[in-house]
Each structure stands twice: as structure tokens, then as C-alpha cells.
């Protein structure tokens, strides 16, 4: 169109926005995103970040995290100031509660208007004061067809001993909890500490079956045929299946997690307006399309969906049927008490050892003591000898 600015071959952005106002000011944006969650130019994709830099003259320092919790910890620990972050739903809520996010000035993000209404106004941020949806999706079960007897259809298959050592599991507390909770037919948002304990017990029981607790390593492992079953995000499953046709994806019958990842600006952001420009850029249809094609997640922007190629557009995995969505449940922000119970229980679970080698501590303490006594004795002896 006339009022479009052609940035690269693939990307044009709306011309009625002042993209150049920070040019030459040496502005740098620190963008903190999930791994593999933007079209970054690898594998012949479009490099949307450098296009943004060319367009605006703003430098982007792009780094990645691999779970909401580590994002939270990194920001919470202080000091670090990011300009744009991409937390998921419940984490957005938690961060809002703790005053970690800055309210958005939508006049700087006109493209937000293109976002479908069904993706706005979720409980974690009802007015979308702090967050602009970036991608949405569901979780599901990825499996290697050559390694399973019959296609799994339930989370419970991940507890099946015939897959011992061939199961991968989420390496973050909420997602892992969700799997176990759904298996038990419970809500994936625990309401009480007892509930947490109950579900974590289930995870402990699963431990002997699990080969590894991983996050993005799952790509490599599933594509390489290292494991038979793994729960992961639907969008990523599409990527994996593309790379290894042996893989398949299923929405377990107990129901899955529905999530929205949102673009947010932390409260201690140093350059909010530039950050909002980045948000606006991310909501550009061309950019959204590039991202969507690269990462395979589901877009909340209508214009992007329309332009997807059919394979993705009508993908059962990316845009599941209503039946699946009906059974899907979203995360909510937990109360502080339940949250900390979950964290503790999670690390308990991780450190839990069936063999149980608690007595080893005793052995080690005794050993350490023996060594130090031996040392003192040695020194005394040496001293005596020297005096002699």
C-alpha cells in the first residue's frame, strides 16, 4: 500500500507511525524473550530484529530465557533492567501484583488494535493495561511414532512404566504441575497447599519413568529420537514434526493448558517509549507473520492469521478445535502461600531420590570430621617435631 514503509523484502510497516524519532540517539533496547521465540534470521527466516534496527535506528540487545520463573528471578533480583519481556499469563499477573510492570501507553501502540478480542481481557490483566498478547497456544503430548506401541491419548501414558527412561518432562513447576494435575483430573491452578502436595506426590511417582527434565532441549531430544514421549507447547510441536516426520502430537483427553504470552514492559524500563515502539512493531502484520511462520505458535492478530499459508492456518495443532479449547484451562496467578508451597515442593520433588541416601550425609559428616581431626593431629605432630 501507499502508506507502507518497505523495510526489507519481506517486511513493510505502516507509514503513519513515526518510526524514526529515536534515530541517532544511541538508544538500546534490552529485549528478553523465550528461546526460539522470534524470527531471527536463522534457517532462511526473516530477521525481524535487524529489520527493526534498520527501521528505527534503535539497537536491540536480544537475550533469551527458558522459563517464566527464571525470567521472574532475573528481574526480581534487581539491577537488571530490560525494556521488553514476554511473560506468560500467570506470570504477568504475578508481576502486576508485585508492581514489576509498567502500564502501557496505547497511543504508542496503534497496531494493538489488530489483536482479536478473544485474546484480550483475560483475568490476569483484565484491561490489558500492562500486556499485549504476543502468541497463544496450548500444551500437548508429543510422541515418537516409532517408539510407541499405540498412540498415546492421555497424560497418564507418561506414567506408563513401559516407557521408563523414554519420557521427558517439563522443567518448570507450573507446567509440570499442570500435567500431573490434569492426569489426576484436578485443576491446574492449585487452591490449597494440600492440593499441591497431592499433585507433587504424583510427580514424584513419575520420577523413575522420566529420563530428563528439560525445556527447550526437547527440540533436540525429540527430533533426535532420544525419547518417546514429551509434553510441550503445541507451536513447538509443529516445528519438531516438520524436522522429524516420525513425531506426532496429541491433545490428551484430560485437557490441556491454554496460555497467552504477552509483550510487557518492566517498571524499571529506562526507555518506555522506545519499548512501546518495539511492541507496536511486533504487532505489525508482516512481523507477526514472519514470527508465526518461524515459531509455529498461534497468533492473536487476525490479519496475520489470514495471511498464513494453509498448512499452518488450518493446523489442528496450532488452532485446535473448540472441543479441545473447551477442555483447556488457563493458568491463574496463585496466592503467595500456595505459590511458595509449590516452589518448595517442586525443588523437593527434583531433589527427591527414591533410593534415599540420607544416611550418606552422616557418612560424609563423619568423614569430614575425621579428616579435620587427622589434620590437627598432623599439624601438632609437625610442630612437635620442629621444636624437637
Amino acid at each position, binding site marked *: 500500500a501507499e502508506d507502507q514503509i518497505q523495510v526489507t523484502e519481506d517486511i513493510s510497516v505502516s507509514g503513519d507511525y513515526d518510526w524514526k524519532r529515536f534515530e541517532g540517539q544511541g538508544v538500546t533496547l*534490552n529485549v528478553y524473550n523465550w528461546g526460539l521465540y522470534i524470527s531471527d534470521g536463522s534457517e532462511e527466516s526473516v530477521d525481524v530484529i535487524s529489520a527493526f534496527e534498520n527501521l528505527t535506528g534503535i539497537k536491540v540487545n536480544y537475550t533469551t530465557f527458558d522459563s517464566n520463573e527464571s525470567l521472574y528471578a532475573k528481574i526480581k533480583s*534487581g*539491577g*537488571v*533492567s530490560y525494556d521488553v519481556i514476554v511473560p506468560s499469563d500467570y506470570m504477568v499477573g504475578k508481576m502486576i501484583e508485585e508492581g514489576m510492570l509498567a502500564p502501557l501507553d496505547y497511543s504508542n501502540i496503534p497496531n494493538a488494535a489488530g489483536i482479536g478480542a478473544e485474546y484480550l481481557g483475560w483475568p490476569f490483566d483484565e484491561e490489558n493495561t500492562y500486556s499485549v498478547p504476543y502468541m497463544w497456544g496450548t500444551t500437548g503430548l508429543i510422541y515418537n511414532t516409532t517408539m510407541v506401541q499405540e498412540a498415546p491419548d492421555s497424560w497418564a501414558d507418561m506414567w506408563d512404566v513401559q516407557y521408563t527412561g523414554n519420557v521427558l518432562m517439563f522443567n518448570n513447576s507450573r507446567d509440570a504441575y499442570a500435567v500431573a494435575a490434569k492426569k489426576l483430573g484436578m485443576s491446574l491452578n492449585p487452591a490449597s497447599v494440600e492440593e499441591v502436595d497431592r499433585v507433587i506426590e504424583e510427580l514424584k511417582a513419575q520420577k523413575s519413568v522420566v529420563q530428563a527434565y528439560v525445556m527447550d532441549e526437547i527440540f533436540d531430544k525429540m527430533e533426535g529420537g532420544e525419547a518417546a514421549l514429551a509434553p510441550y507447547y503445541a507451536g513447538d510441536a509443529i516445528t519438531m514434526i516438520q524436522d522429524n516426520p516420525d513425531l506426532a502430537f496429541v491433545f490428551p483427553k484430560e485437557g490441556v493448558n491454554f496460555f497467552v504470552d504477552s509483550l510487557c514492559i518492566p517498571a524499571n524500563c529506562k526507555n518506555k517509549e522506545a519499548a512501546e515502539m518495539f511492541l507496536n512493531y511486533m504487532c505489525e502484520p508482516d512481523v507477526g507473520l514472519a514470527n508465526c511462520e518461524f515459531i509455529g505458535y498461534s497468533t492473536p492478530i487476525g490479519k496475520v492469521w489470514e495471511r498464513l499459508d494453509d498448512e499452518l492456518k488450518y493446523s489442528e495443532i496450532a488452532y485446535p478445535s473448540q472441543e479441545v479449547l473447551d477442555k483447556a484451562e488457563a493458568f491463574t496467578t496463585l496466592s503467595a502461600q500456595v505459590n511458595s508451597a509449590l516452589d518448595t515442593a517442586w525443588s523437593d520433588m527434583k531433589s527427591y531420590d527414591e533410593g534415599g541416601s540420607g544416611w550418606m550425609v552422616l557418612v560424609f559428616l563423619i568423614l569430614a570430621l575425621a579428616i579435620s581431626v587427622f589434620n590437627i593431629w598432623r599439624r601438632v605432630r609437625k610442630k612437635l617435631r620442629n621444636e624437637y
Partner: protein
Amino acid sequence: MKNRHLRLLQRTYVVLIFCFMYLPILVLAVFSFNESKSRTVFTGFTLDWYKSLFTNRMILSALALSLAVALVSAVVATVVGTMATVGISAMGRKSQLFINNISYMPVVNPEIITGVSLMLLFVFLQNWASKFDALPDAFFGLPTLLIAHITFNLPYVIFNVSPKLRQMDSRIYEAALDLGCTPRQAFFKAVLPELTPAILSAFLICLTYSIDDFIISYFNCGTLQTLPIAIYSMTRKKVSPEINALSTIMFLVILSIILISNALDSRRYKREQGLGKAGEGR
């Protein structure tokens, strides 16, 4: 005869150990030329991964940052550490022991504790300074990274240089005085050159540790990414053979640096020997 068997056994053992140490590196190198992304099946030869590596901005900028941090921190640590060594040597035995023991802390402490404790300090400093607006905006980042690297480098300088200083013949210093140097001149003209090899090797050690450090940087890098951190984030994603290409290049660079410096060394040695012979001939 028995000796020969024993020697064969020794050789075999050493060769096996070296195989163990080099096997993984070999694997990395071989698969950097693999056409497909598979890390285990070799499907064909390609140099594509090297090409794409050199267009990977993340890696290149992380590399630049790592080099810069390593260089600056090594220089600062070497200068401060050498000064410290000289100063400490002038102290009494008790204070020497005390300072040395504290200096040992970053060496014997697990890296994670050094990293974490520095992070806590920086957080504390920042919270405290934010009240007065005394610290620069981007305090967490380059400044903290540099401070952390200098901190864990300093002990290596001290423990490398101080034995040299102690072993050094104090008469050399006196000889310089005797020949007309003031104490300051004597230090720079006679003592410092003597310490140079130790200082240099300390500097190299600092560089190495600095470039290789992951854990301490990980806790103190703020929004920045050093090369190890970039590599870490790469290993946690869908791994691309670029990483193999990167390791192969790093290995070759290091290997060639070592070989060149070795060759230079032995050439200098030979030249000196040759000169010596010529001198005797006359």
C-alpha cells in the same frame, strides 16, 4: 626386556588418556562439517555452518564482549595484582599470611558462591545507591561483569607472581642500586623485567579464565551475554551445528596460538644457542 614391555604399557595408557581427552573435541569438529543437523549421523560435507556462524550476530557480539571483558579485566587484575604482590612482600609474616588466606577465598570457593555473593553485593549496592542516584543506569552489566572478572582474576596474579618475587635474588635489586639506580629505577629496570615472565603468564591465565568463565558471569552479566552465556543459551535450544563450527574454530585458533608461540620460543632458543656457539668460536 621387561623395561620395554613396561614402556609400551605406559605409552598405550597415555595414548588412551589423550584419546579420552580429545575424542569429544574431534566429534565436535567432524560434525561441524555435517550437512544435516544430526549430531550423530554424518550425511555429507558442507561449510554452511561456518558461513551462518559468521552472520550470527548474537555469537559475534557475545564474542566481542567476551574478548573485551577478558582483556580489560586481565590488564587491570595484572597491574593491581602485581602492585599488591610487591606491597604484600614488604609486610610482616603475619599480615602476609592473613592476606593470602583471604585471597585464597575466590580460588577455593566454588565458583557459584563467588558468583552469587558478588551478585548479592551488587544488588545491595544498587538498592543502596538508588536512593542517592549515585550509580550509573547500566550498573548491572558491563561494570559488574568487569568487577567480577577482576575479582576472580586477582588471586591468580598474586599467586603466580609472589613466588617469583620471593625466589628472586634480592641481590639483583642491590646490584642495580650499586650500579647507580635510584630505588625506583632499580624496581623498573631490574626487578620488573625479572618478574615479567610470571606477570605475563598470570595475564594469560587471567585471559583464559575470563574468556572461559560461565558461572560467575552468568550471575553478574545483567542483560549482556558473554560467549559462554551465549553458548549456554544455544545448548539449551534446538542445537544448531553452528556451535560445532564455533568450537572447531576456537580449537584451531588456540592450537595455532600455542604452536606459533612454541615455534617462536624454540627459534629464539636456537638462535641464542647459535650465537653462543659463534661467540665461543672466536
